[in-house]
């Protein structure tokens, strides 16, 4: 347990990586967003089916490393059924945790807690962030109104970070 590597690649992370959730395409796409991590080549596509202010279904398609895939998979699992406010709140919490701005997740958030280990690998934080930033951008776009094009984000965009 002294190997920080095991702290990042926890079993739950590797499990999400090996069998990512949210793989199934969805029909109704109220929120569409894509993200990339140009220095790594990680790419993610994300679609949300909204119903009555809640996330009815999520589709996440991520090409990237174990961390970015696992992070996207956990996201898909977690936000299903949550209200838009809850989604926004958790996204900010995860972002803050990954950037080391808060120490612990406020409540028991299940698998998401496992992302903490990434903080010891600063260059990999971007990978874990990618899915959450893509989600935030998609929600922002959605809130601006229906006619916005698909949201998109790059982890090297300082302003959007």
């Amino acid at each position: 347990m002294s190997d920080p590597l095991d702290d990042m690649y926890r079993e739950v992370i590797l499990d999400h990586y090996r069998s990512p959730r949210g793989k199934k395409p969805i029909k109704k796409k109220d929120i569409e967003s894509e993200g990339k991590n140009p220095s790594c080549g990680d790419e993610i596509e994300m679609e949300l089916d909204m119903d009555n202010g809640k996330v009815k279904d999520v589709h996440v398609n991520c090409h990237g490393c174990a961390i970015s895939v696992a992070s996207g998979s956990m996201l898909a699992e977690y936000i299903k059924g949550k209200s838009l406010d809850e989604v926004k709140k958790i996204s900010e919490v995860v972002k803050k945790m990954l950037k080391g701005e808060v120490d612990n997740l406020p409540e028991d958030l299940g698998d998401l807690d496992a992302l903490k280990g990434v903080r010891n690998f600063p260059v990999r934080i971007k990978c874990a962030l990618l899915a959450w930033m893509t989600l935030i951008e998609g929600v922002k776009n959605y809130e601006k109104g229906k006619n916005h094009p698909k949201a998109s984000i790059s982890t090297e965009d300082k302003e959007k970070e």
Partner: protein
Amino acid sequence: MQAKLNNKEIIVKDNKDVLDINQIKADFPILNQPINNHRLVYLDNAATTQKPKSVIDAQNEFYLTINANIHRGLHTLAEKATNAYEKTREHVAQFIGGVKTEEIIFTNGTTEAINMVAYTWGEKNINEGDEIVITEMEHHANLVPWVMLAKKKKALLKRIPVTPSGYLDLSNIDKIITSKTKLLAVTHMSNVLGTINPIAELAQLAHDKGAIILGDGAQAVPHLPVDVKELGVDFYAFSAHKMLGPTGVGVLYGKKELLETMPPFNMGGEMIDTVTFDNITWAELPHKFEAGTPNIAGVVAFDETLHYLEKIGMENIRQHEITLLDYALKQLTQIDGLEIQGPLEVTNRGGAISFTDPKIHPHDISTFLDSRGIAIRAGHHCAQPLMKILQKVATARASLYIYNDRNDIDALVEALKKMRKYFGV
């Protein structure tokens, strides 16, 4: 103990190091440290190399004894500093085959050297309808300047394709290099595939059509004996930091006849002859292209770098890398699932070995190896178009140099063997 080599004959030695690696390792204090509780195995040499103590000391020595600005000073330190700086220029001219000293221009790296050619020769000589030829395996440094120049000038950018085994595909070269071609810009050795390209042959093809050729030597000069006159290149660029030298020093070699016709690049002190508010005349070569205060300490230390390489011998370095590469490829090709990119024939390639695992992303490979003390690089290696052609988002790359030995390869191979198990794929 350095083996004598038949001139340029290539021998794959099975059981013996060509160089005395223990002695060499002792020259590099940085290698003697633990990384994540393991011995540091530095295999990221295509990105940058480590520096021998003598090069670090040479830079110190400059600052501690003769530091001054160069060229304009009449006092003792200024004269010593100028002489030391110019001595490196002479040394570089010798090192790459005995060219004229005024054909050697110091830059801050390969990237600046190539941009200098684009901004000066390119700006002046590329016109609408002209063709610039590059290859599919170029580093962004020898690609982006030409993409942008072609756009600006409405010239056509053409490319020499890469074969599945990692070589330049010259089968249609007559259609690619034509009488409209003005410039062929090609890497001497690929930083991703390791491929050594037939520069002399390409130079001939370019010259036959009246074009000139620029060689990107960033990966070649550190690892091969290079003679720019034998290669027949018109321009040739490389970086000190990739050949045991300091950061912030690069070289542009250019044929005098070309350099003389070119406008200057950056403008300021040292590169002018006379200046009024209306009219300016330029200094003679090479000063015309060296505006402002250069990286004096770096250039001076680069002289010692060349001495160090010469003491070992570029032929021996090449022989050592071939031998080690052969050892490495034989084992890496045995590892379950690992795919090697680039040629497998050691005599046609250098020591940059890119590999992928279909189930494990290169970043995870790199993080995993780093936890075992092994430094490799993962990513697109500043060659995004090549990645697309290889159909990879990224690769992992281990790259060799003089201080690497079989222990380093063994450590890499052993870790890679454990990797799939670790990730459970």
